[in-house]
């Protein structure tokens, strides 16, 4: 115990007064944080609370407007990833920084040998990777191509990359977002092993359960500010939730309604492998007045399912029925004509045309039918429509002429929501509708989806956030490896049972 106390006393990393502004937005406001040897600190906060920005400053991707960083007692020069690496800081990014065309070994060795050396020393690199793999239980074949690796394996490579560079401080940004519950367990075991060897870890997450399970100490960020700091042993999930959110959030009124008729149906649909994991022999019925949730780890066929409903993907075999007919010539246009509203996963790249105005964006799905005559666009009507959506959906934006990329994520999503819901659609695809939004916007989106359901629309909610799926959906399917389970009523399965199925074990197919 005495040894423990001495060890814990050594501060390896100290951030003081870190401030970073992006235009009008203050992403980090005078944040202090310190990390001790052999400790796992969780950085907890909602999406948009400033966690990733803070870590990007620490790692030198961004330069802070104010504040200082000290690693192992020495000041860290800002804006230089090389300096961070040199100081023993390793970062596992949320979006992996691996080059798919290289092997595991090449990815790990990248940048570790003198760039002008006439020959890449593979032998010593291989030996060192083998040693580290053994020591920390991170088994991987260094000669495999990264493009062939599964997500969990890629993460192992990322951790090995840091260890290979003698990282003493490891930052993991939302490492469990892409993992199944089982893989998450394995990751946590690895992390415990690492701190036992004297490494220190900052673990970024917005999931309370994981934070309580793995961290020694929790630092909570809210709206770019430090909201509090607790030892996990001395706090509760409820207390952390309150710190994180800052206000009591009323759960959406999701009292179930009577299920209406089937408005859209997939009958043993399979898709081609063009967009990620293909769907395999999937059956799904969307009823009016029902929110149907799809739970699953990302990359298990959600993209294909969303593509089918959006009209960007056609079934390779099986049938897609809207009402009781299979529409001919399936395309985004047909989907829109049949009353399917789509809220895409990526609102920046797919949901909006960033460099066009709000007006030009809101008419993109209806300019053919409503806002043009004889091939000419009625810009006056389009502008009135934009003004109405801005008012109806509580969008904060200077004018309909504003380029949409200047709006905040929440306001952009409200506009996309308005564009989708305004024509009173019969089926609504909501793919990750609240990712990256602040609490207020999340509640708003949820309320609008429930309102649409109560109006009799069939809502399909695809989300990687299991809590969101469970709190909003009237019935839930699990998706794993391109297969979709039978529907489960609210409360029919426990979270751990669902987790097992998400990992692909014992998926109950209809």
């Amino acid at each position, binding site marked *: 115990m005495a040894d423990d106390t001495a060890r814990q006393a050594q501060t390896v990393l100290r951030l003081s007064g870190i401030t970073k502004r992006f235009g009008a937005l203050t992403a980090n406001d005078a944040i202090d944080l310190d990390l001790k040897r052999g400790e796992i600190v969780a950085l907890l906060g909602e999406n948009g609370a400033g966690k990733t920005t803070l870590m990007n400053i620490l790692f030198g991707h961004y330069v802070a407007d104010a504040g200082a960083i000290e690693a192992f007692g020495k000041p860290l020069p800002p804006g230089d990833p090389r300096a961070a690496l040199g100081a023993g800081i390793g970062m596992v990014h949320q979006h992996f920084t691996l080059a798919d*065309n290289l092997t595991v070994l090449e990815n790990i060795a*990248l940048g570790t040998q003198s760039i002008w050396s006439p020959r890449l020393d593979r032998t010593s690199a291989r030996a060192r990777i083998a040693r580290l793999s053994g020591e920390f239980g991170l088994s991987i074949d260094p000669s495999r191509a990264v493009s062939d690796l599964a997500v969990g394996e890629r993460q192992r490579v990322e951790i090995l990359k840091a260890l290979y560079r003698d990282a003493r401080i490891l930052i993991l940004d939302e490492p469990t977002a892409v993992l199944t519950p089982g893989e998450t367990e394995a990751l946590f075991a690895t992390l415990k092993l690492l701190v036992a060897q004297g490494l220190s870890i900052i673990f970024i997450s917005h999931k309370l359960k994981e934070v309580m399970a793995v961290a020694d100490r929790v630092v909570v960020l809210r709206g770019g500010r430090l909201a509090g700091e607790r030892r996990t042993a001395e706090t509760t999930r409820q207390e952390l939730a309150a710190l994180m959110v800052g206000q009591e959030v009323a759960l959406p009124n999701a009292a179930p309604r009577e299920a209406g008729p089937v408005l859209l149906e997939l009958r043993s649909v399979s898709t081609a492998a063009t967009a990620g994991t293909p769907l395999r022999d999937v059956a799904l019925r969307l009823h009016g007045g029902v929110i149907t949730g799809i739970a699953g780890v990302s990359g298990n066929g959600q993209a294909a399912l969303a593509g089918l409903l959006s009209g960007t993907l056609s079934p390779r075999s099986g049938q897609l029925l809207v009402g009781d007919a299979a529409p001919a010539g399936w395309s985004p246009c047909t989907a829109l004509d049949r009353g399917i509203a789509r809220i895409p996963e990526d609102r920046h790249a797919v949901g909006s045309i960033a460099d066009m105005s709000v007006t030009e964006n809101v008419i993109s799905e209806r300019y053919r039918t409503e806002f043009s005559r004889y091939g000419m666009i009625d810009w006056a009507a389009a502008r009135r429509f934009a003004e109405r959506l801005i008012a109806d959906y509580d969008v904060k934006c200077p004018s309909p002429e504003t380029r949409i990329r200047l709006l905040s994520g929440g306001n952009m999503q409200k506009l996309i929501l308005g564009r989708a819901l305004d024509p009173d659609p019969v089926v609504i695809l909501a793919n990750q509708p609240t990712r990256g939004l602040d609490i207020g916007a999340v509640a708003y989106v949820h309320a609008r989806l429930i309102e649409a359901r109560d109006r009799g629309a069939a809502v399909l909610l695809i989300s990687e956030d299991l809590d969101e799926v469970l709190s909003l959906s009237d019935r839930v399917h699990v998706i794993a490896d391109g297969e979709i389970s039978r529907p489960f009523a609210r409360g029919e399965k426990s979270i751990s049972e669902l987790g097992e199925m998400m990992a692909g074990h014992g998926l109950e197919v209809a």
Partner: protein
Amino acid sequence: MEFFDILFTASFWVAAIRIASPLIFATMGELICERAGVLNLGIEGIMVAGAFAGWVTVYAGGDLWTGVAVAALVGAAFGLVHATLTEPFGLSQHVVGIGITLLATSLTYFTYRIVLPQVSSPPRIEPFRNWAVPYLSDIPVVGPALFNQTPLTYLAFVTVAVVAWVLYRTPLGLAVRAAGENPSAVEAQGLSVTGIRMGAVMAGSALMAVGGAFLTMSAFNSFFFEMVNGRGWICIALVVFGSWRPGKALVGALLFAAFDAYQIRLQQVAGGIVPYQAFLMMPYLLSIVALVLVARRASYPRALMIPYQKGER
């Protein structure tokens, strides 16, 4: 059948290798740029500038190898302009590339007129001479084609080996390939994406210029306007055809050159019946056909044509 007899003459193969040499240099240059993530449409103009720079150096009394070095330097200079505008400034690689081609071409013609205001036909220089490899050059057909060429041709083949070695066997090559695939992987390992890409574009542009210099210093002995004549664009097609791999690109360049040499001889055989322009069109049409054939399965560098911005999602 005389159409096939052509293939068994030594002169056909000698010509094929000679036609291939400038293409090999420039294709390797473009390949380096694209592997790092930058499409370099300046290639056509840089070849023009290289052809002139090498030739004028020798004309002014410089040694042949000095001429090659000057051409490479001029190429690297245009590469620097291209890289600065496309990489840190993030301007469209299409627009900048076309701009560099226009600039390099017009600057060359301007300089030519200043250096030689009065001449109607350009003066000649003493170009590189063939250098026969002892014994090997005596092998029938293959010998003269492969082992009785100018030193610049040998250098072209050496260049392929060096580029392949650097790309696949050295830490630098690793960084270049990663920069063209996922620049954030390079950045996360503490290397500068901008630096690597700028270096690659400069080195690649230097090779393009040497490819141009081959025309004035080895294939011919003088500088003419329009002498590059779309070879740069063909090299861009060859890079795609070679799936961004030096070895395959070399094979592509050789196949292409063999076809070109064949059509020149075919003109002499069949010239009376078919207009000669139909033969001259072949290289360009062939490049388009080659692009169509490989486009479906081409695995191009994923970050090609995307300027890198630090810390951007």
